[in-house]
């Protein structure tokens, strides 16, 4: 078949040649003032990321078309009420490309498994009416956020800073649902999945688990709303798991099945993927049942304490004698942010930034700092968050093969003239 796609590739190719190559992406970038990511991203990542709008979303930073992996530009992260990420700007991350659309009226959640007394099934209507409805404000951050900044680079979706968002999630506590089903004493893990979105039967299906203690945590919910609206298709409609404090790999979108099991869940997505070297990140929760006696890795669990400067990207010019306002975010796994400090002398001295309103331990916290540069020329700005148990950010990358947990202190250079 002479496909229309090969015709289009030919057409686009000849146009690209006429105008010097990589036509579409460069134009898309040139058309906009959106920050597409730091210069430490790989050259190909920077060259081929474009702004592109998925149905129902505003233009976001496209890292890959299929499956859809779209990053939130920094300018949108706190746009809603000054603290939440708007639903139409929330990052999008899928592993497998055969994504189903599930109508709210057709959705059911099956609760079962060997460690459940009375398996049952729920409709969305029952979820919304038969249980206590709760809300939690929580940061949802892809495990691989900032992977693209790994030095040396590692393969995978080359995220910059924006594979994360903060939202108010509304739903039902997982433990209320599990208690209705009856949790047997031998329950070890809660496994969960969405409709099969594989293209090939031989691809490992995306099935995940969390330890029972995390499933029974009062903050772990099944959410059907974010920021007061139904979940968008791209963010997991009709309902998804929300696991505050833990990275988004456990926040299963389009949740349709929960199984309590007395043994560790097997499979690629638990045993091989989403793992960190044992001992390199000693301050995060251990998922013990997923470790093996001689193993060298453990599943990624909690987010590490981190901060982000949101209003400066580097290279900005300021007038001498005027203060420079530095604004940003700080978050951790739910211990809560204690301080954010800023250094303008390459890390020799640190001054406290002003923290914004506390929206709860799982929300990110805004902060701001007024910097009066002494003298003209180049000035650097660094920010460092510390949480309430004293964990802080690192000065150099704790490199790991999948590019997780990058909380290296940012250093942004500005020019004063």
């Amino acid at each position: 078949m002479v496909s229309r796609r090969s015709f289009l590739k030919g057409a686009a190719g000849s146009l690209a040649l006429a105008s010097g190559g990589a036509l579409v992406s460069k134009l898309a970038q040139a058309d906009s003032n959106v920050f597409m990511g730091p210069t430490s991203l790989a050259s190909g990542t920077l060259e081929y990321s474009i702004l592109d709008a998925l149905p129902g979303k505003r233009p976001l930073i496209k890292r890959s078309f299929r499956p859809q992996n779209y990053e939130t530009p920094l300018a949108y992260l706190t746009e809603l009420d000054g603290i939440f990420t708007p639903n139409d700007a929330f990052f999008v991350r899928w592993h497998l490309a055969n994504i189903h659309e599930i109508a709210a009226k057709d959705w059911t959640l099956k609760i079962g498994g060997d460690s459940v007394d009375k398996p049952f099934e729920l409709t969305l209507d029952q979820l919304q009416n038969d249980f206590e409805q709760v809300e939690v404000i929580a940061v949802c951050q892809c495990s691989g956020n900032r992977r693209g900044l790994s030095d040396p680079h590692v393969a995978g979706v080359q995220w910059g800073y924006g594979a994360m968002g903060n939202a108010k999630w509304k739903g039902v506590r997982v433990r209320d649902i599990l208690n209705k089903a009856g949790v047997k004493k031998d329950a070890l893990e809660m496994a969960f999945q969405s409709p099969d979105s594989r293209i090939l039967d031989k691809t490992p299906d995306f099935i995940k688990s969390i330890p029972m203690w995390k499933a029974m945590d009062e903050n772990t919910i099944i959410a059907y709303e974010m920021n007061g609206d139904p979940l968008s298709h791209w963010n997991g409609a009709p309902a998804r798991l929300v696991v505050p404090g833990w990275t988004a790999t456990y926040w299963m979108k389009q949740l349709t099945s929960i199984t309590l099991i007395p043994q560790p869940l097997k499979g690629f997505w638990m045993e091989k993927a989403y793992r960190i070297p044992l001992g390199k990140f000693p301050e995060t929760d251990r998922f013990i049942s997923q470790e093996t006696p001689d193993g060298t890795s453990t599943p990624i669990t909690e987010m590490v304490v981190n901060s982000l400067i949101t209003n400066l990207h580097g290279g900005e010019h300021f007038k001498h004698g005027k203060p420079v306002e530095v604004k940003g975010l700080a978050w951790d796994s739910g211990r809560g942010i204690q301080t954010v400090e800023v250094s303008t002398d390459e890390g020799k001295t640190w001054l406290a930034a002003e923290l914004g309103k506390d929206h709860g331990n799982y929300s990110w916290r805004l902060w701001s700092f007024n910097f009066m540069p002494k003298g003209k020329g180049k000035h650097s700005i660094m920010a460092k968050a510390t949480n309430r148990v004293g964990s802080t950010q690192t000065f150099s990358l704790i490199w790991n093969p999948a590019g997780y947990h990058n909380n290296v202190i940012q250093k942004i250079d500005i020019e004063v003239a």
Partner: protein
Amino acid sequence: MREENIVKTIAILMLLLSGTAFADESQIVLKDAPGKHVVVNNCGVCHSTDYIQMNSVFMERKGWEATVNKMIKVMGAPISSDDAAIIIDYLSKNYGK
């Protein structure tokens, strides 16, 4: 803004001609070189080929070899060993360090 008009023309062409879920990714232009069609036909089954561009330029031949082998052995891609060799060659020469 002549270039913008060209982009618009391409976009309209795509809308008229494709109408598929792959409309957006038809703008991906991989480097013309031997083996390109083997790459598109194999890798493109499960994911858009901008994954290749995004993951460049930092992998040496060994890195692309590992990636292609992961797709075959772990993700179950039915790629013949002949095609795998062509793909690894194309990726290392065109998107490799």
